[in-house]
């Protein structure tokens, strides 16, 4: 029930933000769509934390700000490597240990790794993630510990340590 209300609010906000029209007919269509989506979700009984992760969106946005600066740093490294005349790269495959069981946290962590240029999550196992790195110095497992903590915090799985 709680997730149903959250989903309805989010859907309404999305509709209003994307349409920008406030005439009765469009609003009625919006209400009909929202009710239909809610009914379908309830019918499939998928109204839970995983389908409706919107409560942690503010945390995720704060996390994205942190991630953005990481991305800028990594981008500069990759640009330097790619534009250097020698094109000196040292591709490596590394196993990054990661123990969190929650699917959302794992997805967030792997997505953050892939989003950062120079590292791509290639394979997910239960206790580690196989990461392909463009430069050898990017594949230090210790460097990913901070990102693991931050990404777990971003979806509300852990308390932030500063």
């Amino acid at each position, binding site marked *: 029930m709680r997730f149903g209300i959250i989903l309805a609010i989010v859907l309404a906000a999305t509709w209003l933000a994307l349409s920008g029209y406030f005439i009765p007919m469009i609003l009625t269509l919006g209400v009909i769509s929202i009710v239909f989506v809610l009914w379908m979700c309830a019918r499939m009984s998928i109204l839970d934390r995983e389908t409706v992760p919107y409560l942690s969106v503010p945390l995720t946005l704060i996390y994205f700000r942190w991630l953005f600066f990481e991305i800028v740093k990594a981008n500069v490294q990759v640009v330097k490597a*790619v534009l250097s005349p020698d094109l000196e790269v040292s591709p490596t495959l590394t196993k990054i240990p990661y123990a969190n069981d929650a699917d959302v946290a794992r997805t967030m962590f792997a997505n953050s790794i892939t989003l950062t240029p120079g590292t791509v999550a290639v394979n997910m196992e239960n206790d580690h993630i196989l990461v392909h790195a463009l430069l050898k110095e990017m594949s230090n497992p210790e460097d990913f510990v901070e990102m693991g903590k931050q990404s777990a915090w971003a979806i509300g799985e852990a308390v932030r340590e500063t």
Partner: protein
Amino acid sequence: MIGLILASASESQAVSLHVDWVALITAVASVVSISAGLFFVLAGTLGVLRLPDFYTRLHAAGMTDTLGAELILIGLIIQAGLTQMSLKLLIVAFFLFITSPTATHAVAHAAYKAGLKPKLGKYKAPDVDGGLK
């Protein structure tokens, strides 16, 4: 966009040069942001062309759709100001942050499952003067 900058600094009928500072700063900031984004897109494209194998090329492509696309979007948001358009652009930027790594991972994972072996170890661009093999 140059036109925008010039327009914001257009001379009024009086002798004094009338400058709309807010419009000027907005235009300059968005031009700088979009140009930086274009630089990263260019570097990413060069990387895709220059790097040796599939996995390393993914990194260069990733550069294009993170900083490249995001900086261009930020530039457009600055230009649009506080409108519904910039809200939509913000949503596009947010979705790009979620979907582009998912797609990259799907491609990389498919290649890994299909048994494509990555080139590992040091790699250097072949020497052009010595003749390409």
